[in-house]
């Protein structure tokens, strides 16, 4: 949520209640470096430490890449206006598929990724992706853009998702948040992607307001609380956590209307929470929820199959 950390003084904040902004756009390098730090911090006290350490290094690579790349060509204003008029996401994934800039980011990411410390299986997935001929790479890009990851090739898709997140965050950061409109419950107003998790904000000016994090472009957008992010129902919403931890800072928001669930992170209880990193680190909740008849509706390329 690096978008909140502006240092500009704002006298209107003093003694006044401000309406929370609808969307908070990512600052790419900061988004990924913050995530890398959070992954590293979580790795210090987790059974999942090896995976978290790997993802920390991966996020650091994303951050370095985002910082080194020149600013992305912004999304054309007429495309933003057209999307706004039709209540569609301005980042058109179909156009992105053909983008030369995206291919360049992927190429640079794949050049640097082998330096990461990783198990043989992950290295094999990365190598398969690096060696993939153009038409296979096209297909993998298509899968990532469709948020439809085939289970027999999770590792190459994970690497490609990470590379594409960098470019998506760069494009999102070029937009004017004031021009964004809600697309639909649980869909990112920038890229139309599904949420990874939602955060009950603890930041000054947006206390207790819910923001939903996009797994693809890193945008956070405001959604009303106590509402299912998969179907929009406000009836039959429950919050599941392990027994004795009713004030847990991460819970499963369940919906009895569509029988799905999405993680909700209470940043007002723990200000360090970051939606992608803490989603992976709270794998235990996924394993507990897998025993129930609710289906996970939160999406993250780093946590598929639960």
């Amino acid at each position, binding site marked *: 949520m690096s978008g909140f950390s502006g240092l500009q003084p704002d006298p209107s904040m003093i003694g006044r*209640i401000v309406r929370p902004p609808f969307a908070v756009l990512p600052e790419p390098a900061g988004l990924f470096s913050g995530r890398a730090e959070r992954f590293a911090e979580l790795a210090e006290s987790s*059974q*999942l*430490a*090896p*995976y978290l350490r790997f993802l920390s290094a991966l996020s650091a690579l994303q951050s370095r890449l985002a910082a080194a790349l020149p600013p992305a060509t912004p999304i054309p204003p007429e495309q933003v206006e057209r999307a706004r008029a039709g209540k569609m996401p301005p980042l058109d994934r179909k156009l992105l598929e053909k983008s030369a800039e995206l291919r360049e980011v992927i190429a640079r990411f794949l050049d640097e990724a082998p330096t990461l410390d*990783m*198990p*043989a*299986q992950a290295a*094999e*997935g990365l190598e*398969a*992706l690096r060696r*993939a001929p153009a*038409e*296979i790479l096209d*297909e*993998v890009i298509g*899968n990532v853009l469709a*948020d*439809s*990851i085939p289970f*027999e*090739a*999770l*590792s*190459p898709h*994970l690497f490609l998702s990470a590379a594409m997140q960098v470019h998506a965050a760069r494009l999102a950061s070029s937009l004017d948040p004031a021009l964004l409109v809600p697309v639909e419950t*649980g869909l990112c107003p920038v890229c139309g992607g*599904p949420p990874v998790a939602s955060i009950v904000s603890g930041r000054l000016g*947006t206390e*207790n*307001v*819910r923001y939903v994090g996009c797994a693809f472009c890193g945008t956070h957008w405001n959604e*009303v*609380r*106590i509402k299912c992010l*998969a179907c929009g129902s406000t009836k039959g*919403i*429950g*919050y599941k956590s*392990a*027994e004795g931890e*009713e*004030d847990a800072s991460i*819970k499963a928001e369940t919906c009895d209307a569509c029988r*799905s669930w999405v993680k909700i992170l209470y940043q007002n209880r723990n200000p360090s929470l970051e939606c992608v990193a803490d989603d992976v680190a709270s*794998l*235990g909740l996924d*394993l*507990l*929820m897998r025993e129930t008849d609710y*289906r996970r509706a939160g*999406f993250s390329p*780093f*946590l*598929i*199959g*639960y």
Partner: protein
Amino acid sequence: MNVELSRRSLLKVAGAGVAATSVTAMGFGEAEAAVAAHVRPFKLVNTTETRNTCTYCSVACGVILYSRGDVRKGEHAELLHVEGDADHPTNLGTLCPKGAALKDFVKSETRLRYPMLRRPGSDRFERISWDQALDRIARLMKDDRDANFIARNQAGVTVNRWTTTGMLAASATTNETAWTTFKVAKTLGIVGFDNQARV
């Protein structure tokens, strides 16, 4: 919107055929097993978050009530926490000191749970039934109204005022309840009256 793991890919990775989760596919299966072993003894419990309206005054601020236990499944719900509803247009998540103390109000040992009566000359309250309470209120209202009702003022104009009894009605009500409350009070001629309908 749910993501299905159904698509087949041209891209195959040897040895990854059985891996159905990102963690195992990346070669961190051991860590995943450790997490699974760690969480095995835990049971999930449900808490609910319910929107409501603060009962204190006629501003009618939105609140969120956190409770343990699922009433929908016949369980007893216990209030854990109360906070201002950040999505509510009236208060945008803020609460005054009275509203912020709502949990103590709910949990107070001296909270009124049933009708109580302190008889004239007595030094203590005693519990009575709702029937007794309503009969008594109706009787006293009728007697007071019969004795003090002002049908006409000094100039002979019909005013239908009942000034010796006042009414203070609830705030956490709908428009319709407020309307009905207002009609009941004004039909009787009550002048000293306040409720949600004033706002």
